[in-house]
């Protein structure tokens, strides 16, 4: 056993001697995508009956607002109104492709579950989502990946037109400055109006026309889209 291992073992021992009810969390989020931004993140600790979203259920108006325009205010208010605690916008703005925000401190108090959302931009209504992850009671480092969901509230026409308000078609913006214009739009034949795993974007290589204002070489992704590490102290 070398010094390093010994130090680590001692460190782990000291962590384990802390009371199991400690609820201090240190969180990091990495955007795994090639060319998509995350709008301001909402990280929420809440009770077992609360959700920011649920796959297979209709999006709430608050979720729709986040997924179509990146506005987390209503979701934040809903969580805190129900006694939960949140961290809003830890990256102080957009989280760029392949960028990481870390050292996010959250005292979950007696809240038992953790959720996370942010809009994936540029998309019509894609969001990165973690739904009610049970916060471990044992101190340690927990790492997992999370997927992109489709809020099911807006057709994925892939037209960048500034439309970010709920119910307004189109994509608000391409923050990387790499979007196209004048697309005719993709016919989204899906009538799934429930929250579901996002099918991904199509895009094309015509930045001044074509069917999509997204660039197939830049804006596509495969799930998962984010890696989350939670250190339970």
């Amino acid at each position: 056993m070398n010094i390093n291992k010994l130090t680590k073992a001692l460190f782990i021992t000291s962590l384990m001697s802390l009371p199991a009810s400690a609820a201090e969390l240190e969180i990091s989020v990495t955007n795994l995508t090639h060319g998509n931004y995350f709008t301001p993140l909402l990280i929420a600790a809440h009770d077992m009956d609360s959700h920011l979203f649920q796959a297979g259920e209709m999006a709430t108006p608050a979720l729709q607002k986040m997924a179509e325009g990146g506005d987390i205010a209503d979701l934040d208010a809903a969580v805190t109104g129900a006694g939960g605690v949140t961290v809003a916008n830890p990256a102080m703005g957009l989280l760029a492709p392949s960028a990481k925000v870390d050292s996010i401190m959250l005292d979950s108090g007696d809240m038992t579950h953790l959720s996370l959302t942010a809009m994936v931009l540029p998309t019509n209504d894609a969001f990165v989502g973690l739904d009610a992850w049970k916060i471990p009671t044992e101190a340690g480092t927990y790492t997992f990946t999370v997927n992109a969901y489709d809020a099911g509230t807006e057709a994925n026409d892939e037209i960048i037109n500034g439309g970010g308000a709920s119910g307004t078609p189109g994509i608000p913006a391409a923050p990387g400055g790499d979007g196209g214009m004048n697309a005719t739009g993709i016919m989204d034949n899906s009538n799934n109006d429930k929250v579901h795993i996002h099918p991904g974007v199509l895009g094309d290589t015509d930045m001044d026309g074509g069917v999509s204002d997204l660039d197939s070489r830049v804006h596509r992704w495969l799930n998962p889209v984010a890696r989350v590490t939670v250190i339970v102290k």
Partner: protein
Amino acid sequence: MNYPINIFKRNAIALVAFTAIGLAGCSDNDNDTPAPVVPPVVAPVMQDYSVTVTNLTANQPMSPVAVVAHSNDSTLWSTGMPASVALEILAESGDSSGLTDETGVNELLSGAGILVPGGTETIAISLEQADVADLSVVTMLVNTNDAFTGTTGFDLATLAVNDTSTLRVIAYDAGTEANSEAKGTIPGPADGGEGFNAARDDNDKVHAHPGIISMDDGLMDSVLSASHRFDNPVLLIKVTRTK
């Protein structure tokens, strides 16, 4: 990592040699000098593991799978950070040999050959107990510009004998070469093009691979077709401690 044990062995050999010289030097002397105690030579205790990998893709052969034993404060890559040159070479050409020179790497084993789509291979690795720390498994998806898959920093200490840990891992983009899919840029059989090129013309951060577009899906310069597309997970890894 085996430094302390080597030192011990060396000391033991030196002591044995010294003792032999000492005895030779006092052949006729019958005084009662006690015979020096020769410490027993301790055989290293080995821990054996098997790493079984299955290529889950439709049509992405994988370069000979590298199984790397390394110290637990090192990793072969970190998402969001630039790839090392050794990882870049692996991700662009499939050649894993440069990983042996990475910090903290104790041992590199390589699969027998290309891991074909649908193929399974088991690679055995035996480590001295003192060397048991972290394991990485890494391979290139060869019909791509710079896609690789695997896991890094897997903690072997969590496995008891006969324990198996199963991982289903995603494809990563080394971020070192643009995903042009163009003729002459892909080393795999779909193209037979260039492998490693030191120029970095992508975002220079390891991230989740966005997938293959292919000519069939509108990328006109692509030499790839629909079957070269993949979705996650792309590789199944089973790590078993066998001894």
